[in-house]
């Protein structure tokens, strides 16, 4: 029996009750049942859970590795000695430089673009070696104090593991393409302890589309990885969330100011990276051995000058900023120093992520703006913590250009929905300013600098979509009624009108007929018959004005004219489209 047979045909009645499932199982052999259970779409969901588990375990190990690297390289104390500040990142930089050049060249950078490349270029294939390399080099870099974060590497490690599992399971090419984002979501969710944000980020920035099949797998993998991560590392968020409150609506102005400041900071940060990264890459190859070391040395100097907080991911300092432990002036200095430090680490090709530095800069900037506003307007009730939280979302929206994720990330991290209005306002300002001053998003610029041409999710989101109404033409002649007789129709035409004529059928639907066919039917003596009954039983497909124009392409090669009808009344004709009008519209659009 065919596995795909309709279960409804197997209905039996037992004790007066319909039991579809039992009947279906009885009607199938065990082998068929097994085959059905392991059908690829279902198996993919099961595999997603395994991807989540493996990614979660890998991320837990990654966290251990970072912490151990930190303890052994920077010492176990919160106060670092000057020698360690200078030596740890620079010596680790030397090792990282050699490892990246000789063993793991694919581990440079954050890992988000590599995951996107796996989806769009390499059919989901990412060498497992990349995961090993990323694990070692990023742990060493972050643990030694380079100003980078563990989230993007976790994302890439998750994608690598997923790709490995997909290859071992011999998935089809379509599934293989999707498997890297599934692993990426798992890795990110575990690293950030925020499954919703991870799912949104992967959908928003990597896959770029919502479909039930992808969403199910991404959600399953993200949830299972977070469960595993929480099993080992606990469910606490990365920082203690302060009480969030918004008492006075006028305070929203303060958050708007934060959005503006955050937007400008995002542009400065992104411009620095996009300017200096290609310059560093263009330097002679031998310098690349030393670039991470020099970056580490300069980072140590920044730390020695009074800002050791910029070393590493810096979550503990985000926590401290949220609880008002720094003055607003120092917070502003820390935000600026972190931008410089991250710039140094990232453009030198040191493997590591941008998420944590982005959150750090945002939190410092937010708390600083909040503190300054409290000095200027003491009646404002928002705590430094609230501003820091909103600030994190602002940089996320402005720098990473993931507006949806930025809002949900703050909500998920804070667990407080009263913050949603300030976050939306501030993020909108930051996003608009960042987009206005830097039209191409940072990840897309980095991709292009690497010589790859991957689809830009932001450009896709913002792209003008052509609709049927853009190519629609008014009807060039009479529209016949299927209820009228052939003679009446011919009389109505009176020899005029276009060759192809639309016929409105009853009770609904459309058809078309050539004038010549009508005359032939009349010559056959069918003048008194209803026009609808004479036409072949085939319906002309119809469109609505708001349909994407690409939908018209499916029909215009088979039908000379396609009716465009109102959504309120399918018999009301708004216009028609033809192959010529559609192609003309596309040509005009392409010419700009």
């Amino acid at each position: 029996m065919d596995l795909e047979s309709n279960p409804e045909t197997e209905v039996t009645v037992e004790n007066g009750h319909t039991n579809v499932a039992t009947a279906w199982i009885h009607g199938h052999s065990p082998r068929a049942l097994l085959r059905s259970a392991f059908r690829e779409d279902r198996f993919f969901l099961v595999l997603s859970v395994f991807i989540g588990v493996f990614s979660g375990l890998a991320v837990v190990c990654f966290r251990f590795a970072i912490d151990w690297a930190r303890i052994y390289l920077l010492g176990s104390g919160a106060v670092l000695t000057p020698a360690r500040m200078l030596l740890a990142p620079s010596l680790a930089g030397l090792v990282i430089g050699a490892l990246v050049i000789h063993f793991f060249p694919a581990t440079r950078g954050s890992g988000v673009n590599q995951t996107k490349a796996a989806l769009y270029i390499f059919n989901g294939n990412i060498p497992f070696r990349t995961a090993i390399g990323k694990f070692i080099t990023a742990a060493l870099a972050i643990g030694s104090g380079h100003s980078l974060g563990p989230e993007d590497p976790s994302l890439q490690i998750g994608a690598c593991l997923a790709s490995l599992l997909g290859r071992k399971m011999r998935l089809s090419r379509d599934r293989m393409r999707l498997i890297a984002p599934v692993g990426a979501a798992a890795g990110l969710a575990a690293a950030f302890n925020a499954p919703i944000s991870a799912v949104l980020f992967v959908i928003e920035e990597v896959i770029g589309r919502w479909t039930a099949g992808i969403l199910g797998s991404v959600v399953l993998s993200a949830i299972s990885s977070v469960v595993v991560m929480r099993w080992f590392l606990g469910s606490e968020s990365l920082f203690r969330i302060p009480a969030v409150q918004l008492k006075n609506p006028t305070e929203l102005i303060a958050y708007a100011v934060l959005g503006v400041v955050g937007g400008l900071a995002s542009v400065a940060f992104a411009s620095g990276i996009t300017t200096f990264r290609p310059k560093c890459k263009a330097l002679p190859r031998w310098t690349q051995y030393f670039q991470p070391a020099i970056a580490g040395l300069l980072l140590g100097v920044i730390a020695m000058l009074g800002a050791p907080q910029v070393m590493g991911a810096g979550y503990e300092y985000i926590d401290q900023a949220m609880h008002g432990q720094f003055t607003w002036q120092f917070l502003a200095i820390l935000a600026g120093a972190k931008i410089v430090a991250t710039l140094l680490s990232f453009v030198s090709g040191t493997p590591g992520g941008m998420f944590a530095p982005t959150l750090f800069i945002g939190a410092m900037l937010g708390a600083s703006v909040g503190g300054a506003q409290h000095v200027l307007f003491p009646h404002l009730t928002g705590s430094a913590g609230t501003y820091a939280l909103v600030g994190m979302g602002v940089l996320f929206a402005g720098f990473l250009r993931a507006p949806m994720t930025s809002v949900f990330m703050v909500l998920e991290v804070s667990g407080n929905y009263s913050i949603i209005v300030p976050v939306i306002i501030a993020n909108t300002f930051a996003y608009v300013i960042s987009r206005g001053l830097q039209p191409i998003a940072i990840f897309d610029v980095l991709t292009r600098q690497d010589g790859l041409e991957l689809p830009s999710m932001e450009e896709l989101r913002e792209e003008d979509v052509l609709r049927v109404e853009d190519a629609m033409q008014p009807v060039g002649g009479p529209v016949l009624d299927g209820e009228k007789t052939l003679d009446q129709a011919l009389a109505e035409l009176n020899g005029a009108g276009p060759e192809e004529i639309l016929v409105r059928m009853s009770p609904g639907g459309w058809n078309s007929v050539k004038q010549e066919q009508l005359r032939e039917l009349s010559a056959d003596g069918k003048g008194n018959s209803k026009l609808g009954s004479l036409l072949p039983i085939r319906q002309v497909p119809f469109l609505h004005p708001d349909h994407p124009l690409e939908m018209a392409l499916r029909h215009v090669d088979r039908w000379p004219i396609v009716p465009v009808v109102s959504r309120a009344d399918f018999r009301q004709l708004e216009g028609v489209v033809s192959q010529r009008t559609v192609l003309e519209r596309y040509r005009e659009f392409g010419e700009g």
Partner: protein
Amino acid sequence: MASPKLARYRLYLRQRPTLLVVMSIVAVIFFLAVTGLSRIYYRQREFLGNRWSTRGLADLNAKNFGAAVTEFRTALLYSRDDYSYQLNLAEALIGLKRTGEASAYLINLWDREPDNGVVNLELARIARQQTRTDEAIRYYHNAVYSAWPKGQEHRRREARLELIDLLLQIKDQGDAQAELIALAANVDDEPEMQPIIGRLFLRADDYEHALAAFRTALSQDRRDAEAMAGAGYAAFQLARYPLAQHYLEEAAAANPKDTQSAQLLQTTNAVLHMDPFRPKISSVDRSRIVMESFAAAGQRLNACPLPKGPAAPDGSAVSLSDEWNTLKPQVNALKRNPNLADAAMDLVFRIERQTSAVCGTPTGTDLALLLIAKLHEGS
């Protein structure tokens, strides 16, 4: 044949159910390995956390707050939610007068354990410092009824004493008295607490309970000069002058440097000496005292001239001075007319009351007369 068999095994291995089983086994092994790693990881973190916390505690006890803050912060890196590390850090921050930061930690701790006495007491102290009185009182109340890790009764008492001090500071005598009565009931069997409670009762203007507390203290240590002075003061305020005289004499004798008691004793002696209505007094003595009092009132009137009094029923304004002058010749002949003593003393009392209202509390004989006036008020 081996080759087809091997091929069949390979085929089985490539089947998805088989791969799923293999994947499950690998996942379990990976899971166990990470469990082992996590044990090592957490053991190391616990060790480091304890090490830094021990250093922090040593610095905290040595009042080296700056170092203690750094060390507890480091300890928290390894155990972010450790309650005792956070609490110790908050205490070190309070030591550095960084109450804002300390509050952040304490509020976090309070959210986790709202009935922790230490946290409530520290929050109360910070709120008091920042003159958020209502909040401070609430936290003090919490601290009084909270659970304390050790020495619960002692720590609760400490919290209550601070609460009483705050209530007295904001002049909420009623609530302070209520708290003091509750405190006194809890320390009935602790004589060393009685003088403290007695003093607080004095500050709360509850002289009856103050006297009782000092007497309890004296029943344990009859030579406690402080308790004698306190009892004397309380008895004085209760207008129990013979009792006050007894305690004040003993207090002054036990501690010659106690000028306050000596001064109070003087006033008490004067009251007892100048009271013409005390029992068992001869008419001669009474007349003498009335005459002395009348003379003293006249001097007081001269020193503190009063504005004209209310108009008499006949329309003429009669001042106390006029009254005094009118009565003076009769008082000089008091021995011949002892019935005049009541009228003379009534005038004396009125003069003392009104002059004290205008010119402030008097001293010496006038004070004694004023106190006698209060003593016989309404009689």
